[in-house]
Every structure is written in C-alpha cells, then in structure tokens.
C-alpha cells in the first residue's frame, strides 16, 4: 500500500476531529515556538555582545592590577602593588609589539553646570586614548599631551552629559565643576551609545594626572594598549608581562585582559545560556509529545471497531501501525511548522519593537525544532500505534 494512502487516512482522521487535533498540536506549537524564540533571543544576545566587543578594538589589551586566574572581566582590587604611570612609561620605552598606550583612572563624581547637576563616571586619561579605544572628540578637541603634562583642568564631555547639563547651549569654553574643582570644556565626544551596559556618552574625560590629583590617587585603574596586529597578541602579552614583572619585583600582580579572551569568555557564557534556554523550551516540546501520546491512546480506544474492521477487510498490522504513527507525526509536524512560523513571527516582532535587541532566527534552530517535533510525533505515536496494530480483530469488532 503506498504511503500516500496512509497520509490521506491520517488527514481524514484528523479533519474529522479538528478542534481536538488543534488542541493536541497546541502543545507542540508552544514547544517549538518557545525553542525558536528563546534560541533567537540567546543568539541575538550573542551577536550583540560580539559586536560590542569588536567595537572596542580587536587588538585591545587591558592591564589591570591584581592577578586573576580566570580570563574575562573579573578582577581583585586590593592588597597588591598598584599600576602606575611609571609602569606605562617603561612599557612605552621597552615594549616593541605595542601600538599606543593609554593610562586610565576611573572615578565617580558630581558634575555641575550652573544649577544643573549630574553624577557621572569621570575618566582620567591621556592623548592616546582616542587612538587605543577608537573613541574620538566630535566637536572641539580631545585631551592633548600638553593638557596631561601641565595637569590642566580641561574636560571633554559625552553626549548625554552635554544634553543634561547644557541642553541646547554650546558648552565649548564653558566652565563646569567636577566635585569642587572647576574645569573648562574643550570638546564633546562622538556618540557611541550604550556598550556592554555602559553609557559611553555619560562620561567626562579629563587629563589623567589631573584626575589623580583631584581624586587623590597615585595608581591607575588600568592601562589600555593595542597589539600591533592580531597575530602578535600573545607575544605582546608576554612582553608586557616580562616588563611589568621586572618592575614589580618579579611578582605577577597584574592581569592582562585581551579583547579576544573577553570575547571567548562571553561567547562561552552565552552559548551555554542559549543551550539552557533551548533546553528549557525543549521540555515544553516534550510535554507536547506526551499530549500527543495521550490523545492517540484515546483515539485508538475510540476507533477500536474501525481498527477491527480495517483488519477484517485486509489491513495488516503494519498498515495499522503506519496509519497511527503517520497520524501522530502529522500532528507534530504541522504543529512544528505552525510553531516555527509563530516563534519566528514573535522574534521578528520583538526585533521590530526593540531594535536594540538583535534577535535572529537561525537556520539551525529551525531545523532542530522541526526535527525534534518530527521525532516527538514518531516517538510518542509509536506506543499507541503498536497497541492499535496488535488488537485482535474479532475482539476489536465486538468492542462497544
């Protein structure tokens, strides 16, 4: 008997009970849709973070005080020798594989202009910051070497700070107060928006030594630098390590974080996150499968006489088995298709509503959800179908 006939029988049976068929499918629809949606969100987050990290420069290296074993962004703050501008000077002089070094001191302080006040992250840095971090002043100019050397009280403000403090007025040449100290605004940064949860536009940049002075710090929060190219990242790290250890009495009391390491750490975290989400969603697909099995068992019982009759007129066990398995697979596959369309619809709807969230329905999640739906139907259909196939035709025909 050709398989097309089995398919026709399955469709006839499902169409005879449309509401029940739909409700049974609903379990699979919800399961598949949530797999598609959650994986889309997970993958979207991954794409987003990757893009953000790429944005901070591929060859970026960050030297932070304290030794941490794990790669990534964690750090231990206290009890170790500080990283200083002297360290930076030594690296500048001796390291050959680095392209620019920038000192960074980070602190928080209220910034005040006339009667407006805003708490902002203050970044003390130097003229190399623009190049190393790939962030530039859009209007006016960034901090110069002369500003740093002379410990001038000049500030470059971010977009958000400008808007909050000045509104539409031109801030160039105006004086703001950071803490109790007056600074002259010399530039406005280009807009970069939110990166890794930090609003780059909500910063104020001042010369590094000025920052050390007003915040009373002699160390640096970190040193930013760049390897000459991607292939020299590891060697550049070794070089930094050697120079720094020599200066720190042989102690490796600092950590060199590379953008690559952050990337791979984030990637690992987010991949796990995606799998976990997908796994949770798969459970609902499994529940959908149990729903199919349940309804198929009811259906086999209801159609006992039909099964007896079909056997009497020439259906073999195999024919009956196929009839019911195809019926349950049809349920799960149609449910799967609707679920994919629904899940993708919601994912792209979310993208349209919140453009920041780069959700993307990946081909592999669609293929996986579909295959999974297919096998759920086959797996949960086989037991009821076997029950049907093994019915004794005489007893089945007598069944009331």
């Amino acid at each position: 008997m050709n398989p097309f006939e089995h398919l026709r029988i399955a469709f006839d049976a499902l169409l005879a009970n449309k509401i029940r068929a739909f409700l049974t499918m609903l379990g699979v629809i919800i399961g598949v849709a949530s797999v598609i949606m959650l994986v889309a969100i997970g993958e979207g987050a991954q794409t987003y973070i990757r893009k953000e990290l790429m944005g901070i420069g591929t060859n970026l290296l960050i030297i932070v005080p304290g030794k941490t074993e794990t790669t990534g962004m964690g750090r231990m703050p206290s009890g170790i020798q500080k990283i200083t501008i002297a360290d930076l000077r030594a690296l500048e002089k001796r390291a050959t594989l680095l392209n620019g070094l920038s000192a960074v001191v980070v602190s928080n302080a209220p910034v005040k202009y006339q009667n407006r006040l805003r708490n902002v992250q203050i970044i003390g840095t130097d003229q190399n910051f623009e190049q190393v971090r790939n962030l530039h002043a859009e209007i006016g100019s960034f901090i110069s070497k002369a500003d740093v050397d002379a410990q001038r009280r000049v500030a470059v403000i971010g977009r958000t700070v400008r808007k909050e403090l000045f509104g539409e007025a031109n801030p160039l040449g105006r004086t703001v107060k950071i803490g109790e100290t007056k600074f002259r605004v010399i530039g406005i940064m280009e807009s970069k928006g939110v990166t890794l949860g930090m609003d780059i536009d909500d910063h104020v940049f001042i010369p590094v030594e000025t920052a050390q002075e007003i915040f009373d710090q002699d160390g640096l929060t970190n040193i930013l630098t760049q390897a000459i190219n991607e292939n020299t990242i590891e060697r550049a790290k070794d070089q930094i390590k050697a120079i720094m250890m020599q200066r720190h009495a042989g102690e490796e009391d600092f950590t060199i974080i590379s953008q690559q390491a952050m990337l791979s750490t984030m990637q690992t975290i987010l991949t796990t996150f995606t799998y976990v989400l997908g796994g949770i969603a798969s459970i609902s697909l499994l529940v959908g499968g149990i729903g199919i099995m349940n309804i198929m068992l009811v259906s086999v019982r209801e159609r006992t006489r039909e099964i007896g009759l079909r056997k009497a007129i020439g259906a073999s066990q195999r024919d009956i088995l196929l009839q019911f398995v195809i019926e349950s697979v049809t349920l799960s596959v149609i449910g799967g298709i609707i679920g994919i369309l629904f899940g993708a619809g919601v994912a792209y709807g979310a993208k349209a509503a919140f453009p920041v969230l780069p959700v993307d329905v990946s081909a592999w999640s669609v293929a996986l959800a579909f295959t999974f739906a297919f096998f759920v139907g086959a797996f949960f259909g086989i037991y009821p179908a076997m029950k049907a196939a093994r019915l004794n035709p005489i007893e089945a025909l007598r069944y009331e």
Partner: protein
Amino acid sequence: MSDAPLIQLDDVTKVFVTGAIRYEVLKDISIEVRRGEYIALIGASGSGKSTLLNILGCLDVPTSGHYRLEGEEISAKSDTEMAHIRNRFFGFVFQSFNLLGRYTVAENVALPMVYHGLGRRERLDKAKALLTRVGLGEFTGHYPSELSGGMQQRVAIARALANNPAVLFADEPTGNLDSKTGTEIISLFEQLNAEGTTLVVVTHDARVAQHARRVLTLADGRMLTDKQNSIAELTGA
C-alpha cells in the same frame, strides 16, 4: 485445482484459555466449502458458529487442525499474508454494519480497495458500480448516518464485494434489521449467489437458513448435521 474445495478444514479445534479455565469452542470440525455454495451456519448461542466463521474467514486461527485454501495450507502464514488473504479472497458483513461515519458511502465501499492498492479514482468508480449492484447507485455521496439500517447493511455488502471475493462471510446480517428489510437482504444474498458469489452466513434467522442451499448445524462445538436443502424445500418456502 478446479477439483480442490475452495476451503477445506480438517479436524479443526479451537480452545480459548481464560485464566485457569479452558473453553473448547470447536471440536474436530471437518468441512469443505466449494465454489458457488450458499451455506447457513446455525446453532444455539455458544455453539461455536461465530468462531467457526472467524476461522473460515482467516480472522482467527485454529488451535489445531488444518486449513487449506484452494489446496494450500495456510496455518503457518504471517500476519501480513493473512491480511492479504482476507483482502483478496474474502468479504465480511457484520450484524452491526461497521461503516465509518467520516467517510461517504462510496468511500466506505472503496475501503478494501485501498488495501488492495487501487488508485482513488478507480476505487470510487468501482464503488459506484457496486452500489448500483446493491440498489444504492444514487447514494454514493451520502454519509452512512443519512441511510436507514437496511441501506447501511447493503452498503456493507457492497463493501464486502469490493475486491471480488471468493467467499462472502456474514455474521447475523439480519440481526439488527426489522423483518421487511431483513427480507430485502435475504433476497440480495439470493441474487448474489445466483450471480456466482459463494456465501457463508451465520444466522439465527430461520428464513436465511431456509434460503441457503446447505445448512450446517453446530452444537457444543461439534458439527451436528450437514444437510443440503432440497429444491422442493427452497421453492416451497
């Protein structure tokens, strides 16, 4: 081949075991069914006549003994082969008509042809011809629930004839019908037998037994009598 009986049973027994109790439903039954016969199987309830019909129709297998179909032993056939035999050689009519409500009358009649491997168009054309033969040519597109009991049983008979079976088996075909429609079914059987269909009918209905050419009486799983109805009896009835 032409000499061999269509069906030959030798010393067939059937035993059902329920828990510790053994029921010997059929004891040493030996019969032959020849082409063109019209056999009535009668006997009290529990005499084993339905079991015998099921064994003859390959819906059930004997506990011991031999079953030859056109001279070929079939007791060791697989499920698929038995299904094939039921499909090609036999047609069944039941007391409750067992039509599928979600299919039209024509689709019900065409059902055995699905398992025979015929295409849909061919099936429905044949089904229509069969329905015409049982007098229901105009009802092909109706659903079973729209027909009377007598009409439904005729649809079931048309379905039983779908693959030109060698034997048509009927188990109490008039049991659910009033006497008038019962008579219609009886005359339809007469007509089919006259056209060459072999019939084996299990019945309580004396009228059916009267119209059969041969009457087998079972009692307690044994063959009590096997007698040919004389022409005189047939015409006299």
